[in-house]
């Protein structure tokens, strides 16, 4: 009996999803731009929190040239710079409980999932030149039974149409990407818009659901819920 219990526990420790659960973990805190500002040990699985974004809808959805009034223009749900600063100051002074009470922290997905997502979504390298890999959406799905699925959407040309990827209804969590492809025809550049979550992305969520979007053209990761974008960070900082 004891042997069996030890064996089962040993086997569980070998599973990647449980690898961190029985050893002291850390809680990591990122500022509103995704930079590391605090970390402490913690007797449980790894957790990472980011301070909510202060970026307005215009800052996330206008392009360099374009005050875009497009049907897919989404929305931001930012906090004020003062609120963000107060939360970041609390973290820097190691008042983690105080920072948590502000309600301005967003928890990221587990680190092993974030690393897998980055590896998969980076097939679109963000340069917009590859007519295949940079011209499709990618989706990772976590099903109700805990299994993970990686899907590639069809290839589309932004000067024509397309770029959608079906997400199964049985999923409890999914992340997806917006393609970086740019097609130049004379002096006209065609590209996919928006790189941040589209209005469809936001409107399909129920209250309380949080999703992750990789804007491969902006090289940023956007965390959003049914109210809009709540956190933004550079892709390289997402695996901290």
């Amino acid at each position, binding site marked *: 009996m004891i042997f069996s219990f030890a064996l089962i526990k040993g086997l569980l420790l070998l599973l990647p999803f449980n690898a961190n659960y029985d050893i002291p973990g850390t809680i990591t805190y990122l500022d509103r731009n995704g930079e590391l500002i605090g970390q402490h040990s913690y007797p449980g699985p790894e957790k990472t929190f980011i301070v909510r974004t202060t970026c307005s809808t215009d800052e996330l959805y206008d*392009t*360099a*040239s*374009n*005050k*875009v*009034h*497009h*049907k*897919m223009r989404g929305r931001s749900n930012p906090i004020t710079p003062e609120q963000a600063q107060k939360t970041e100051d609390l973290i820097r002074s190691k008042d983690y409980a105080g920072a948590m009470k502000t309600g301005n922290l967003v928890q990221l997905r587990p680190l092993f999932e974030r690393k897998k997502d980055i590896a998969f979504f980076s097939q679109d390298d963000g340069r917009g030149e590859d007519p295949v890999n940079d011209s499709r*959406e990618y989706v990772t799905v976590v099903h109700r039974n805990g299994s993970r699925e990686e899907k590639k959407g069809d290839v589309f040309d*932004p*000067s024509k*149409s397309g*770029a*959608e990827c079906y997400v199964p209804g049985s999923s409890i969590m999914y992340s997806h990407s*917006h*393609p970086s492809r740019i097609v*130049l025809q004379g*002096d*006209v*550049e*065609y*590209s*996919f*818009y*928006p790189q941040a979550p*589209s*209005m*469809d992305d936001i409107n399909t969520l129920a209250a309380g659901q949080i999703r992750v979007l990789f804007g491969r053209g902006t090289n940023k990761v956007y965390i959003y819920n049914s109210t809009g974008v709540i956190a933004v960070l550079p892709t390289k900082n997402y695996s901290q």
Partner: protein
Amino acid sequence: MKITLLVGSICIFQISFAQTITNLSDADKTTAYVQAVTQYINTYKKDIHKTDTLFLEENSSTTNSLPAIYRSTRLISLSKEQVKQLLNKRHSLNLYRMEQVKCEDGIFSVTLTPLGCGFNKARNKYEYLYGGGYTAIFTFDGKKLVFQKIEEHGI
């Protein structure tokens, strides 16, 4: 025997022709383009008293037959040069591209794709942003096209 086979072949040909139409007359195509735009306006432009303009990318096979105005929305077809001239005067505009009518399994469709257009001074390039569109779906009742619905799609 040969006559029986011939009559039978003609009957089968006529039945199959009546059941599935894969091509439309020019008049029906015009109807599809006009209805795609007017049904889009009916569906998405709720405030019919507000004067509005819908810019369409010029395409002789799809946009020539459109009315100049529908309800309170002006329909203006723009060439590429006209788009560029307009972007010298205004910061951005939505330009609707209308694709040619498609047929699949007896269902006809026309897709309207709004492109967010602007001029990037730093790069000296015009930006056309694609984020999805609208597809008007039709069936053919044997005599005429019948509008069914508009489907939205986007990234």
